[in-house]
Structures are given as C-alpha cells and as structure tokens.
C-alpha cells in the first residue's frame, strides 16, 4: 500500500462525489420544471448516466484516448486505463446531463436516448481529447508559445461549456415551450413546481462539486488540494452573493431561483482555474460569475428568445466560458509547472501572462463554434428521423404518462391550466 493506492482512493472518492451530482441535477432540474413533467425530467436525468456509461464504454473512451480501443477490452489488467475511464466517464456524464435541463418539458424520450449516445460517443471525447488528451488545443503552448496552451483544470469548458452549448443548440431547435412567449413576444415565467427539491439539488451539487474540482488534484501529489477546495467554496459563495445583490437591485427582492443559478455559475466558473488562482482571485471570479449568470438568463430569454427552463445555457455555457477566460486573467503563477509540456507555472493576464489569456480565448471560441455547429446539425438531422418534440396535446397533458409511463404525483391534485 503506497502513494499510488492513495491516489486511486482519492480519484475514486471524487468520482463518487461527481456521480452523486447526478442526484443533484435530477432534483434541481425536476424542481425547476412543472409537476406534470416531473417524471420525465427525472427519467432523463437518471437515464443519461446509464446511456453515457454505455456509450463511453463502447466507443467514446476508445475514440478519446486512441488506446486499446473499444469496450474497455483488455482493460481489466491495466489499472491505469480503468482509472482514466472512471475519472472521465463521470465528467462526460455531467456534460451529457446539462442539455436535459435546457431542453426539458418538451423533448421526446426516444430522441433523447439517441442524443445521449451521440454525446458520449463522439462530442465529449472529441473536445476532451483536444484539451485533456494532449490534442492541438493543449499544444498551443508548446508549439505556438501561447502559455501552457488551453488549460482547463476541472472542466469549465470540457464539461460545462460542452453541455451548455449543446443545450443551447437543442433548445433552439426544439423551440420554446408552449405559452412561454406571449403573443407580443415577451416571455412569461413558467415557475418550477418544487422549489425545495430544486434548492436541495443545488446543495447536493455544491457538495459534489468539491469532488468535481478536487478530483484531478492528485496528479501531482495533491499539493494544491486545500487551495482548490477553498477556491471552490469561495467562488460559489461569492457568486451566490453577487447574484443576490444583483437581483435585489434589479427588482427589489432576492429571487431564489436566480440565486441558485448564480451559485452554480460560480462553481462552473471556478472549475477551470481552481488550482491556479488565489482565494482573492476565486472571489473575483465568483462575483463576476453571479452577475453574469443572471444577466445571461435575461439575455437568453428576452433577446435570444430561447427557452431554457432551468438556465442551463447561462449557468454552464456562459459561466463556463467566463471561467476559461478568468483562468487567463487571474492565474497567479503559483501552480502548473510543466503543464502541457511547458515549463514554468501558469500566469494570467493580470500576472503578466498575456499568451495564456489568448490560449484561453481560443479554447472558448473553438468550443462554442465546434459544439454549436455539431450539435445544431445533429439535432436538426435527428429531428427528421425521430421528432425531437412531443405533440401539443402531450405537452399540455405533461410528458410523464406518454413518454415514461408514470404519473409523478398521482395522489396530489396538480394544476395544469398553465399553457
């Protein structure tokens, strides 16, 4: 028993925590959607894990790593393959879950299943390979002198932006839920049906996020463990606080649903840079993320007219992008020596690291463009084969019975008058 088993243990514990985030997403998304679709939203958030595991095991992992190949064949004998598979599949799973929030309450279960496999087999592996697998984005540093190349410690872009941008593409293709926009084009709110469940889900996510961010920390012996955890905590808290102030300022009351979004936005934003910035830096990143997240929710809903029931695009996409950029601004040079084969630590713009900033911007642009185009095309094509959207009647009645054969709350009276 030695340091390697310690590293295995830590990776496993963190992986477990990330798996537990699945329960957090399930509760958060379901709580923020309507009672008549609660079973359907739960079903998606549960099955996406199943699908992601199968898709990644069969094809995705092989594509991403290029090694032994598919179905983890021959892996049993090689513990490092097993551990890499584990640590990646839990991230992928989060990425694949995110669009279920943006596309909730109107998505056919059949097409969702196809989506899940596509994401796990192709989309996540591609971008993850480019950044974490030593691909061309990672090599921007060693080859073109752009700092350490695109750096993303725990997945602001690889996990969250992939999910958020895919969700945006999906929500655009699906169109808004019926009744979301008034005849004059202004949005109405469609309130989530179970706020306590949603908030409890957020708290579970907060808990799991420590595993999410601290998971990769043992690669170099865990020297940054403490700072990663403190930064995660501070950024989340700062973002919730700034979201609170922002909404209190904008309409005179703290809006719990936006604060919850803000909190998660802060956690998304700090994921990329949690090992590279100081506590004060984390605080700044969080403060910006909280406001940005709320403003983005308004923008997506009012200007883009995209209906994203849980705010996934803003939380994961926009704050993920901010997190990538923030790494290029706030990295203070305390960590990252030798990363991506570039000697020296990671420094952002504010610490004299202009090239790193550039690398991050490139990473963000590539992610947005790539994922959006691929997913938009995918959804458009899929829609021809298996319609993405349920019928109007099913949408009014709720997707539960017709899509997943349950009634979420059969003993309670549910109001469905809202269109």
């Amino acid at each position: 028993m030695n340091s390697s088993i310690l590293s295995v243990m830590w990776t496993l514990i963190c992986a477990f925590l990330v798996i537990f985030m699945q329960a957090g997403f399930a509760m958060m998304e379901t709580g923020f959607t309507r009672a008549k679709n609660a079973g359907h939203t739960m079903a998606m958030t549960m099955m996406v894990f199943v699908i992601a595991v199968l898709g990644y095991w069969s094809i995705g992992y092989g594509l991403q790593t290029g090694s032994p190949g598919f179905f983890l064949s021959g892996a049993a004998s090689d513990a490092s393959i097993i551990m890499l598979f584990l640590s990646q599949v839990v991230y992928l799973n989060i990425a694949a879950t995110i669009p279920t929030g943006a596309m909730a309450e109107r998505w056919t279960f059949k097409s969702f299943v196809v989506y899940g496999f596509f994401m796990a087999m192709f989309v996540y592996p591609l971008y993850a390979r480019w950044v974490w697998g030593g691909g061309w984005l990672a090599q921007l540093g060693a080859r073109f002198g752009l700092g350490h190349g695109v750096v993303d410690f725990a997945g602001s872009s690889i996990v969250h932006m992939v999910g958020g941008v895919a969700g945006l593409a999906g929500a655009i293709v699906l169109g808004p839920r019926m009744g979301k926009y008034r005849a004059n084009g202004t949005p109405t709110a469609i309130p989530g049906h179970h706020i306590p469940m949603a908030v409890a889900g957020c708290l579970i996510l907060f808990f799991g996020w420590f595993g999410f961010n601290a998971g990769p920390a043992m690669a170099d012996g865990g020297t940054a463990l403490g700072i990663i955890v403190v930064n995660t905590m501070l950024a989340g808290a700062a973002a919730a606080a700034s979201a609170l102030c922002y909404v209190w300022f904008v309409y005179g009351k703290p809006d719990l649903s936006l604060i919850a979004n803000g909190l998660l936005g802060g956690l998304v934003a700090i994921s990329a840079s949690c090992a590279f910035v100081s506590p004060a830096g984390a605080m700044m990143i969080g403060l910006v993320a909280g406001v940005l997240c709320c403003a983005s929710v308004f923008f997506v809903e009012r200007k883009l007219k995209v209906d994203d029931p849980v705010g996934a695009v803003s939380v994961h996409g926009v704050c993920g992008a901010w997190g990538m950029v923030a790494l290029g601004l706030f990295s203070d040079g305390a960590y990252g020596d030798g990363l991506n084969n570039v000697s020296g630590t990671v420094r952002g713009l504010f610490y004299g690291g202009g090239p790193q900033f550039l690398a991050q911007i490139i990473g963000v642009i590539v992610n947005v463009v790539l994922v959006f185009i691929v997913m938009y095309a995918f959804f458009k094509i899929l829609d021809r084969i298996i319609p993405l959207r349920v019928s109007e009647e099913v949408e009014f009645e709720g997707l539960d019975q017709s899509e997943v054969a349950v009634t979420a709350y059969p003993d309670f009276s549910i109001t469905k008058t809202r269109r």
Partner: protein
Amino acid sequence: MIKIEAIIKPFKLDEVKDALVGIGIHGMTVTPETKGFGRQKGHVEIFHGAEIDISFVQKVKVELVVCEEMLEKALAVIQEKTRSGKIGDGKIFVTRLADVVRLRTGEHGNAAI
C-alpha cells in the same frame, strides 16, 4: 331549505366558521382549493427573472344549508366577519333547494339539515 354559498378569503375561514357555529349552524362544507376573480383581478409574480400573471386569486368556498329562518342570521354573520371594505372580500350566492337527505338516518327536508 336554502343553500348559502360564500366565496371568501382563505384566512377568514376559521373566524367565519366559529361565528356560524356560534349562532347554531350545525353543518358546513368547504372547498379549500377554489380560485376566482371579481373586481379583484389577480396579480403579477416573478420567477427566474420573468413575470407571470396570476389571473385567479385563491379563495375558499363555504357551503351551508340552512332552513329558511336561519338565512338572514347566517348572511349577517358571514358579512360581519368578512367585510373589510376592500375588493376581494368575496360573494355569497343563495339558492333554494328542493330537498335535503341525511344519509345516516334517511331523514328528508328540514329535519335533515
């Protein structure tokens, strides 16, 4: 036999009930999940940064069947307990019934009230 149907504010229910019991009303049926609008027109709530029009206000429907003689007294009591003078106080509808049956005994008419 008269049925009095009063649509009132939920938080007046306990008071109204106690007052009616006080004047000798022996039975009452309540439908708590009632919504309505009158001159009071609903309101706007906020969720996730967008507005939502709540067009129906939560009310409670109280039904009581009384004999002819109690009608005035019951109406008076309900009015007294619910009247704030602000819109939304509610409304009473009075209907004449053809019959009442007490299931326990099979009694009909006034005896069954």
